[in-house]
């Protein structure tokens, strides 16, 4: 009941408002009320949605901006680290490659030079073959020369053996009546053994002993009893002695010569010693001047000329007679060297 009397009056006084239309209008309004409410709700919903979305969008943008800035900042910081690591790895790979190369070359070189050197081996084998040839030739030479000697010795021993045989079988020599077995009538001349038999002379016991001693391939003991034994004394002989010890004897034998001092010094040792002393003194002497005694010191003063005047090259040109004196004899032109300088008017002074 908000309507008061004034309103009623006002309403009644309004010209066009008829009650009917007003009621219809009100009725229509009542009918449209729901529709209007729904429409209003729709509009409000949409509007609210718009507002919220705009707000969300705004928030999103704000967050994105923050995040963007942060990410950039952070990544830029860690980018340096990343970059450094990447650079490091790339460097290491590069160095590793180079190191591999060096190691590869070194290993190849080392193995080829020290472990299995093909060319050294080849040269070694070739030189060895050459050396073998040389060795063969040398051996041949040496053996050749030795072979002569061996031959000679063999022949000599053979000769000696035949001579000994001839000595033992001297009875086989041929006589005038009976020719011996080595002197057959069917041969033109007798065999060599015949000559030996003729030349054979009987050997006395001592010689036999000596010869067998010289060719002692047998025991010493077998030789000592070949001479006929005389009957020894019944009482046993005392052995000679006393002898010095073996080692002493050897020491005496092998001692080097130690001459006495008298023998060892030469005849001219006195003169040599004097010479030696002189040389020694001359060598160590610093001052060669004779030492003059102080007594006649003033009288014995020697005049020492100037180095310049006593010099072999003569005195120099400059200033001998007077200051700035020059010797023009040796000049190419006869004039003396003049020192001039330029004056203001272009002349030269003298």
């Amino acid at each position: 009941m908000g309507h008061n009397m004034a309103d009623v009056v006002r309403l009644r006084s309004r010209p066009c408002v008829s009650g009917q239309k007003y009621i219809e209008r009100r009725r229509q309004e009542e009918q449209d009320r729901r529709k209007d409410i729904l429409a209003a709700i729709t509009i409000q919903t949409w509007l609210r949605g718009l507002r919220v979305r705009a707000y969300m969008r705004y928030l999103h943008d704000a967050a994105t901006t923050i995040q963007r800035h942060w990410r950039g900042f952070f990544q830029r910081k860690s980018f340096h680290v990343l970059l450094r690591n990447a650079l490091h790895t790339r460097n290491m790979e590069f160095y590793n490659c180079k190191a591999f190369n060096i190691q590869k070359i070194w290993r190849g070189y080392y193995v080829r030079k020290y472990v299995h050197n093909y060319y050294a081996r080849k040269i070694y084998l070739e030189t060895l073959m050459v050396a073998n040839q040389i060795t063969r030739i040398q051996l041949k030479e040496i053996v050749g020369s030795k072979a002569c000697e061996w031959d000679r010795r063999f022949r000599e021993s053979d000769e000696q053996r035949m001579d000994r045989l001839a000595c033992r079988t001297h009875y086989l020599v041929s006589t005038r009546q009976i020719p011996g077995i080595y002197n057959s009538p069917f041969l033109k001349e007798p065999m060599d053994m015949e000559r030996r038999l003729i030349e054979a002379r009987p050997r006395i016991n001592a010689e036999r002993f000596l010869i067998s001693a010289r060719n002692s391939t047998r025991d010493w003991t077998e030789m000592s009893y070949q001479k006929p034994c005389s009957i020894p004394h019944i009482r046993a002989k005392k052995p000679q002695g006393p002898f010095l010890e073996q080692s002493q004897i050897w020491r005496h034998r092998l001692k080097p010569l130690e001459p006495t001092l008298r023998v060892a010094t030469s005849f001219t040792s006195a003169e040599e010693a004097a010479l030696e002393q002189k040389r020694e003194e001359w060598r160590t002497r610093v001052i060669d001047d004779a030492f003059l005694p102080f007594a006649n010191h003033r009288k014995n003063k020697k005049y020492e000329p100037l180095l310049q005047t006593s010099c072999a090259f003569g005195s120099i040109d400059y200033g001998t007679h007077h200051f700035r004196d020059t010797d023009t004899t040796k000049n190419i032109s006869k004039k003396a060297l003049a020192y001039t300088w330029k004056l203001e008017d272009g002349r030269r002074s003298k």
Partner: protein
Amino acid sequence: MTQRQLLQVLEEYLKGRMHFVQTMSELASRGQNMKMLKNANVMALLQPLMLDVDPSVQQIATQALGRLVGHSEEMAKELVQGEVLPQIVNSLPKHNNYYKKAATLVLRSVAKHSATLAKAVVDCGTLDSLMICLDEFDPGVKESAIWVLCHVARHNEDLAQAVVDAGAVPFLVLSMQEPEIALRRVAVSALSDISKHSMELAHIVAETGTIAILAQMILNPDTKLKRQVFSVLSQIGKHSVDLAELVVEAEVFPTVFICLQDPDEVVRKNVAILVCEIAKHTSELSQLIVNAGALPALVDFIGENEGSVRLPAVMALGYIAAHAETLATAVIMSLGIPQLTQVLSNEAEENYVRAATAWSLGQIGGHSSEHAVAVAGENVLPKLLQIYTSPDSSDDFQNKAKNALKNILQKCVHLPALEPLLRDSPQNILKHVVIQYSKILLSWVLGGLAGKDGEIQSHVLTSRTSFNDKCDIFNKEVIFSVPPSLLPKSPMSFQTSLRALCLQNSLQLPVANPQGALIKADAQNKRRRGEGKGGNRGFI
């Protein structure tokens, strides 16, 4: 009886004794009288005469006894049991030189038979008396004394050590430098007998500066001295590397090759033994010897000599070649192999020389394929095979031939050399031959030369069938892959032989399908195939 009668009787008795001992001495010097003398029990008669009053009877009796004992061992044992030796030894320093010589003859004759007798001699205190004898002037006495030492030291290491402990070595070294040849000979032979037993003894002998003196004696004209000198050097050098280096440092080496052509056989043999002992130790020593020119000397030596004299030279070549591949090449280039094959084929009597040759050939050929080819080129392999299969070769010989064959075959990839071996070799050798064949075939297949030589394949096939008969299975990893495109083009024989080879390697194969994917490829061989067919020809 007057005094004169007494003296006459005594003189007659003395003459009788003298006559007896002199005759005994003469008889005992010949070996054929021994039995007679033994039966006549002469020893029992002579023993009391050794202690006779008269010194010359003593001497001659001792000498006779020495000669008797020298010929037979039982008499020596009797003598030792009769306990006469201590008396002899004790009286040794007191009497004159003749007695010393006779007494040392007895000692020597006893000691030379066996080690126990020698020990008995040493136990009587002989060595000290002998040292006194060595102090004498007379070279004959010294020589006899050194002979005793020689015979004592010969038997075993303890006796040699006893001799050394008695201080004999300096005396021996001094005696080596005396002018009498017989004394030098016997001193050197005593040193040789001492040093042959062990390293310490050899060291003791070598450290007194002996080697330098011995090195100077090498070119001495006396034959027997040279024999002993080389014998000592080889005994010293054989024990260890240091001693061998000592011997080499004495600069013996180019000079001893001259003596390889000495007229005396024993000298040559001893020189060869010396070279062999020194070459045995290390490759540096072998190289040193080779640089000094050993190879032409040894090869010529083998060519010019016969019989067991060659044995050490052959072994020396084997040792030299065994140490290093370069040295083996040097041996080959010095024409060692023709000489060795000649020994192998021509040597009639001494089978151990042939055995050593087989061993040497194995050492030379075992280094690489070039060496194996060089060895096989002289038709050596069939000979070795023949030796291995012939029933009248000794076990040792067969072993050596087999090892040599194995060594050479493992490196040989030369087809003409392998071919003759296919026909009639026993299983274990044939295994190696077939393995080598498979290697060659593989390289051919991978190199694209498949089906080239049908004949070879048929050979392999026949050998393979013989294997199949005997049901032998091997475990070898020679599995190869053949690209299937190659198979249809190759002839049948090749395929069958391939199959046969795979059977050999105990792979399971579908029998009905000769073509097509026969062979399983190994990952390894896939890689090989990937490397390129042409590049694997020499993959061995």
